[in-house]
């Protein structure tokens, strides 16, 4: 009896909280997906963007899809897991906020929309550009947003709340490139152990490796180095064996980010290239407002090294005309890997959701999502 009374007292409190509906915010990354609700300040869960393939009984990454139909099936399964494992909601007739890169392939976003609208029958889909919305937690309007994720690093300057798409830069250097580099380094050091799964490589990267200082990196790269390398780590594998992660490997794993390729491009040059593409009057402001997002930027020493590299590049003729003296970095009030998600959660909490989202009616009339690359949606500029 006592319990019953107590429950009755509690119930009205809950009742008032029900009134505002929960809206799912999704940021489907190449490696990890961030999931949460609008108005909250951290994702409820961050998990790998993969589903179990029933036919082969192994995990499959969503982005490794073979065809449109394959992607459709993968996404159906993936969204199902999100809603019934984490959100614990029925997706039907509810809005959803999706944070995506401006360079997201049309095939992917259209298929995602199809899955959400026709398979899960959501009421509204609000797509937000990840670079732009990540600024919302800082309340700034102009910044150089550098997103270093798993597949690629994408740099898009934002000026007064408008992404300057003409200045975008992207390089295939991200978590995956680092994994490949680390795998190569480990293979050359350890005979006998090959074909380590990606999860172990990732774990070695996270727990052992760091972005070293520029001076040390140059020393390590040269044939005769007189610096003492950092201590080696014995990484246990499969219970009995172990891999020797030498000090050199620990420091060199991230070097792929700053090794210039055949076109003389690396992470630091592409940031400066993006700056070169922008209006002269904006360059100072952009250089003094750099925001780093994406999981790879969380590596120890990443920011310090990037600053060093940027300053070094300025001394070269290529970038002399920029006339930039200082670089300043923003510290978002969250972890970098969910900075874009947080932006989506903030945008989704406002009335914008009802004002700008693509409704079910619109989608089934047009059978497509509005896109910046589509002239039909950009008719005003012509």
């Amino acid at each position, binding site marked *: 009896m006592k319990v019953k009374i107590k429950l009755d007292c509690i119930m009205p409190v809950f009742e008032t909280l029900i009134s505002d509906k929960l809206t799912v915010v999704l940021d489907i990354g190449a490696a990890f997906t961030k999931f949460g609700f609008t108005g909250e300040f951290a994702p409820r869960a961050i998990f790998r963007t993969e589903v179990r393939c029933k036919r082969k009984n192994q995990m499959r990454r969503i982005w490794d899809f073979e065809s449109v139909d394959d992607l459709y099936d993968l996404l159906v399964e993936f969204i199902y897991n999100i809603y019934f494992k984490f959100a614990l909601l029925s997706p039907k007739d509810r809005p959803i906020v999706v944070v995506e890169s401006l360079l997201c392939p049309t095939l992917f976003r259209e298929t995602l929309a199809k899955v959400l609208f026709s398979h899960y029958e959501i009421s509204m889909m609000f797509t937000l550009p990840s670079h732009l919305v990540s600024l919302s937690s*800082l309340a700034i309007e102009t910044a150089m947003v550098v997103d270093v994720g798993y597949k690629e690093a994408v740099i898009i300057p934002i000026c007064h709340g408008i992404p300057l798409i003409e200045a975008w830069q992207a390089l295939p250097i991200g978590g995956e490139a680092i994994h490949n580099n680390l795998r190569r380094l480990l293979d050359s050091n350890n005979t006998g152990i090959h074909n380590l799964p990606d999860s172990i490589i990732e774990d070695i990267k996270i727990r052992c490796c760091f972005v070293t200082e520029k001076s040390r990196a140059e020393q390590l790269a040269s044939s005769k180095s007189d610096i003492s390398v950092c201590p080696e780590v014995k990484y246990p594998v499969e219970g009995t064996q172990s891999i020797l992660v030498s000090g050199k490997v620990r420091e060199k794993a991230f070097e792929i980010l700053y090794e210039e390729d055949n076109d003389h491009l690396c992470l630091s040059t592409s940031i400066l290239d993006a700056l070169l593409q922008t209006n002269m009057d904006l360059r100072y402001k952009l250089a003094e407002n750099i925001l780093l997002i994406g999981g790879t930027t969380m590596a120890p020493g990443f920011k310090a090294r990037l600053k060093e590299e940027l300053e070094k590049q300025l001394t070269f003729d290529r970038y002399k005309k920029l006339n930039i003296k200082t670089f300043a970095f923003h510290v978002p009030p969250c972890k970098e890997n969910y900075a874009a998600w947080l932006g989506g959660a903030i945008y989704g*909490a406002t009335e914008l959701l009802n004002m700008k989202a693509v409704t079910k009616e619109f989608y089934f009339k047009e059978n497509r999502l509005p896109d910046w690359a589509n002239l039909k949606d950009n008719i005003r500029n012509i």
Partner: protein
Amino acid sequence: MSYIITPDIVRYACTCGLLKPISNLYFCRYCTQLRCSFCVCHEVDTNFCGKCSENIPSSEARVKKNRCGNCYICPCCEQELSTRIASTKTLSDTEDTKTTPKKMYYLSCQFCRWSSRDVGIPDQSTVTGGWPERENVHANQLQELVDMYKAIVLAQKQQQEKDKKKQRGKYLSYTDRTGVTAAALRKRIGLPAELTHPLLRSKPKEPEPAVAKTEVEKLPIELFTEPINLMDITTVDQRLLQPEAQPTTVDKLFPVHKQLSIKRTLRCKSCEHNVSKPEYNPSSVKFKIQLFAYYHIPEVRIVTVEPLRAGQSCELILKFTNPSQHQTTITILELNLEQQEVEEAEVAPSFDNMENLSLQEKQQMSLPSMLSQPSSLMSMSTRSPTITVKPRKISENVNCDVDVPSSTFILPPRDDAAEYDDSGDTHNIQDDTKLVKWRKSNKAYVKLNVTPKEDLGLNSDVVCGFTMQHVYTNTITGQMDKKEPQKYDHKVKVFLHLGKLVGSE
């Protein structure tokens, strides 16, 4: 039983075009169609905690962020933590021997030996808790920001609406025509003369923009000299288990509330009836509604297959079991994927119409009763109509022909008591002895001749298929004047994986 799990030897084609074993299919009695998990609508029925088996109302689950308030999982290995009683005795008062030792509790993981003492959480005096919760350090700052953004957007929206209103009312206002201005009118009524819009007066506060720093966090120097202990550094999964904090070292791992689980209700997308509804009690594995295909569609199992040789006819014995309470007649028809696909596409719209018609009729018929009492049909019609997705093409590579038998056979109804009946088979069923080899109670063993295609290579998987037509007896008494069960001819496409092709003798 083992075949129910894997591999899928016998698969049925669902209405949506996917192939599933019968154990994974549902049968909607209202549309008399097969459904599978892909083509039904999933809904969350109840929330519960998998550890303490307690039902949690959805409102409470929402407040607790879909996590159980009392159960924790290990931040190291994600197993459930158990509460342990501390063995330490209170030695504060040695003189007073009568003091009852105070029980203290801590959390510990039975699998990886992690305990709440490892990270310095003090032992608690109550079993359920008061375990310290971690707060987001940026929460206040971000909350302020969100409130400001909300106000700004709201102001924008209201301004937009106001602008719209103004434009519309420009030439329609009577006061403008008569010369009596709004201000004069206000004065006459006795209101203050100037009333600015409240939003114009108090502009929403603009948030303070963040300032970038030229100083960046330095790489700790110790990394170059100090050896690292792998046991102290967390893995990716451990970090992401706590998305807010993402601790990098083990000493910052805090116990995590257990994620709740759900029970699902499955609803047929075309008729909105439930095909599966679980019981409320989380520890019960029973269902309130369970329209599994297993209870309605005859089950096919392979008994024996002769060695399969390319181009040669071989004998296949199948067992058909009737799970329903009604006698059924089974006809084996030829499987023609191409043709059926076209047929289905053509039939689909007209079929929909028919369904709609029958639904309307149903509603008309039940109208008098609906007037007297609110029927569930009324509430159903308020639900937004579902979108029908075109069935996809069946993707199965059939490489074996089946000789379609000319005769049909009868399956008697399932009788649970038959197992204890020693009197033998007393069915007076005239069977085609070429087709039916043997029968017992509700089962029949049927011989089919199959011929793998000529051009098949050695060791290739042989797949055959046929359409099984059976008489389905619908026992729903919903239809007003038809009290006796209705009979339908229901067709299902069945695909059999017969095994590998062997070489010629």
